[in-house]
């Protein structure tokens, strides 16, 4: 596959979906946002719990994440709904998204005369935007326009043996073809940072990898105290994992073996092609939200015990590590890497199965998470509210 058909955006990125994102700048606008999105075809509500009453660092994270969601290539147009008195200002959020060149409008509930009026006006604007989006045609673009995020959640003893090595093989395959692959979940890198550091493309990247992992390890020890062992430990000893290095190698294996080109902040968009790292927590909901905000058009998500989670913006392909989970949760899982355990397939064969599935999802086949209307979104917050 040298090219694919997608929606070309003004900033040069390419969407594999053509959504209208309705984004509240603050949680107080969630009700209006939901009502607008319910009424308009192709509209996706990005409701969340933040936007006010937090410290500067958390507010910047909220605002960067929301702006990144608006800029994601799968989003063709954006309607921002604000209240009026919030700290994450709807006007500046709309402006920051509009820098990408896509159509963006915004409404303030206090200014427009309350929920009902804002909702009616919002539906009118959203219908026009959605009408324009439905007329847009796909164009052929080079394959290297793909940005794919990696995630794991509900891991088991076989995650690092089947699903993650298969996804790692897909990552190498994508990087060889010039795509961008984002490895996330700093928590899961503790104990294997030396391997990642060795693959850093320069000293600055090496230093950044060491920095984010050390910071995450320290935070884990500070906050979890005696419970830190739940994170900084081999983990599943009964499952055969002997050391923390072994556990973390199993997790980072999703990224394959390519050089690491840069280290991104939470929700930051990559500036380089190839394999990059994003500093996100192991909590899958906040991690996939950051991957979407960083511009991933697709997410590969491995799971051992099974999870329904999927991004509202980036189609999320679920890969099970074992056949029992795959069959038990068939409605949630797209691909069964458990066929390796059953002796039916090799890692290379499952890699090819995932690659073919990616091609079909680009051609608008819906993932199980999309069919289930999974739209899980959560933003990282590190300090108290005020």
């Amino acid at each position, binding site marked *: 596959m040298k090219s694919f058909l997608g929606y070309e955006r003004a900033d040069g990125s390419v969407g594999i979906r053509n959504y209208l994102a309705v984004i509240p700048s603050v949680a107080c606008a969630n009700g209006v946002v939901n009502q607008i999105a319910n009424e308009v075809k192709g509209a996706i509500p990005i409701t969340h719990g933040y936007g006010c009453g937090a410290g500067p660092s958390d507010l910047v994270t909220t605002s960067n994440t929301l702006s990144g969601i608006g800029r994601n290539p799968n989003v063709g147009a954006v309607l921002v709904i604000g209240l009026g008195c919030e700290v994450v200002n709807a006007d500046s959020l709309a402006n920051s998204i509009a820098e990408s060149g896509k159509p963006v409008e915004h409404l303030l509930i206090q200014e427009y005369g309350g929920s009902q009026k804002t909702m009616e006006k919002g539906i009118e604007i959203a219908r026009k935007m959605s009408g324009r989006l439905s007329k847009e045609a796909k164009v052929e673009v080079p394959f290297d326009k793909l940005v794919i995020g990696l995630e794991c959640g509900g891991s088991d003893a*076989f995650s690092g043996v089947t699903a993650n090595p298969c996804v790692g093989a897909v990552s190498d395959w994508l990087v060889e073809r010039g795509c961008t692959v984002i490895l996330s979940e700093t928590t899961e890198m503790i*104990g*294997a940072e030396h391997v990642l550091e060795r693959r850093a493309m320069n000293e600055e990247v090496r230093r950044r990898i060491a920095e984010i992992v050390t910071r995450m390890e320290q935070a884990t020890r500070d906050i979890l105290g005696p419970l830190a062992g739940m994170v900084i430990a081999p983990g599943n000893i009964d*499952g*055969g994992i*002997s*050391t923390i290095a072994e556990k973390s*190698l*199993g997790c980072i294996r999703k990224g394959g073996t390519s050089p690491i080109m840069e280290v991104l902040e939470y929700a930051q968009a990559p500036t380089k092609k190839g394999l990059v790292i994003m500093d996100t927590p192991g909590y899958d909901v906040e991690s996939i939200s950051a991957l979407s905000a960083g511009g991933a058009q697709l997410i590969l998500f491995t799971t051992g015990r099974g999870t329904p989670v999927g991004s509202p913006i980036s189609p999320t392909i679920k890969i099970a590590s074992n056949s029992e989970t795959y069959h038990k949760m068939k409605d949630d899982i797209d691909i069964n890497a458990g066929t390796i355990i059953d*002796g039916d397939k090799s890692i290379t064969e499952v890699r090819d199965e995932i690659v073919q599935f990616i091609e079909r999802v680009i051609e608008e086949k819906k993932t199980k998470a999309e069919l289930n209307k999974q739209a899980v979104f959560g933003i990282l917050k590190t300090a108290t509210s005020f």
Partner: protein
Amino acid sequence: MKKVNALIINLEDNVAIALKDISQGKKVITLDREPFLALNDIPYSHKVALIHIPKEGKMVKYGETIAIAKTDIKPGEWVHIHNVESEVER
């Protein structure tokens, strides 16, 4: 396709992962090597040594060092916290 009961993730690895419970004395069958006998019961998802690993030798999985041998480990031996330890204490 050959019916395997263990997987070598990376060809540089000196351990394989049991894909099902393998009883002592039964054959460990992988795609990449000649079958060999299990010297212990190997629970599914646990590691079995592919070659002789001397005391303080490196245990390699994913093509990387995951642990150091605490004792001499023979081919076919179960590999876990009883005979390996972390390279760096954390």
